[in-house]
């Protein structure tokens, strides 16, 4: 159940980034909002229990604050999601 909530939070962060990429039309997402969504993921203790998840989330947070393109942030978040799913499969 916990794994699901972490995956949901990462998916939420990805959705926020994708809204920037797609120019969703009536909304403006700031880097602060993206960073908040990623920090929400980092706050979950279970992200610490699975190898590489925090590493990728940290990289995504750094990429956001460095002003890297949204696709790069999205790619790094997908990597975190993949690491989380892989970790749960191995456990």
């Amino acid at each position, binding site marked *: 159940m916990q794994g699901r909530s972490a995956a949901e939070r990462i*998916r*939420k962060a*990805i*959705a*926020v980034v*994708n*809204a920037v*990429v*797609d*120019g*969703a*039309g*009536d*909304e403006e997402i700031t880097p602060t909002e993206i960073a908040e*969504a990623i920090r929400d993921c980092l706050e979950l203790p279970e992200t610490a229990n699975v190898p590489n998840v925090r590493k990728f989330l940290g990289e995504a947070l750094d990429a956001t604050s460095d002003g890297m*393109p949204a*696709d*790069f942030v*999205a*790619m790094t978040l*997908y990597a975190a999601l993949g690491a989380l799913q892989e970790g749960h499969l191995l456990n």
Partner: protein
Amino acid sequence: MRSAEGRGRTLDEAVDAALIELGETRRNVDVKVLREGTDETLVEVTVIDPAAASSVAAPSQAANGKAETVRNLLEGLLKHMGVRAQVMVRTGSDPLTLDVSGRDLGALIGWRGETLRALQSVTNVMVGKHLAEGERVIVDVERYRQRREHTVREIALRAARQVKMTGDAITLDAMQAFERRAIHLALEGDPDVTSSSIGEEPDRRVVVGPRKAASE
């Protein structure tokens, strides 16, 4: 330009019916969904201009150098992933759109298009240095994005009709950003209805409501 209509229970069946009539393969045609229902789907299949198609296929032409580079990078990525698929550059597309086609590519689309989104993000990071600042490429697998955009546009138009009849606002299901964008674009020219988004990702929804007159 040759075209034919096809009907079937599913989109694939409808496209196949039109392809048989035209005697063409999927890689040479453009598909437009005319009606998509629970019982029957109607499509219009148009043969892509052979001259335009060949201009994309020729890697030596300088004008298509960027498209060809991007296509090769995506093809290489798919090869490393062990996916056997063909990558074509959609003619006349802006932004540059890459169509991936092949057999059993459902895994490349993934849950609600999640894997496709990831593939597109990776592709854009890989090809970034070949593109101008702010330029992006769109990756589509078996025309999934195109089909989905068409479906949500249909939903938007149906919702708009209902709003005009009842005067009540309608909240649609949660959608991805590109789907919401398609809805806003579909309704932006309608003088009687307006669309806005509410809620937070990934449960953000579009609300279609009556447009209030300026004097009200």
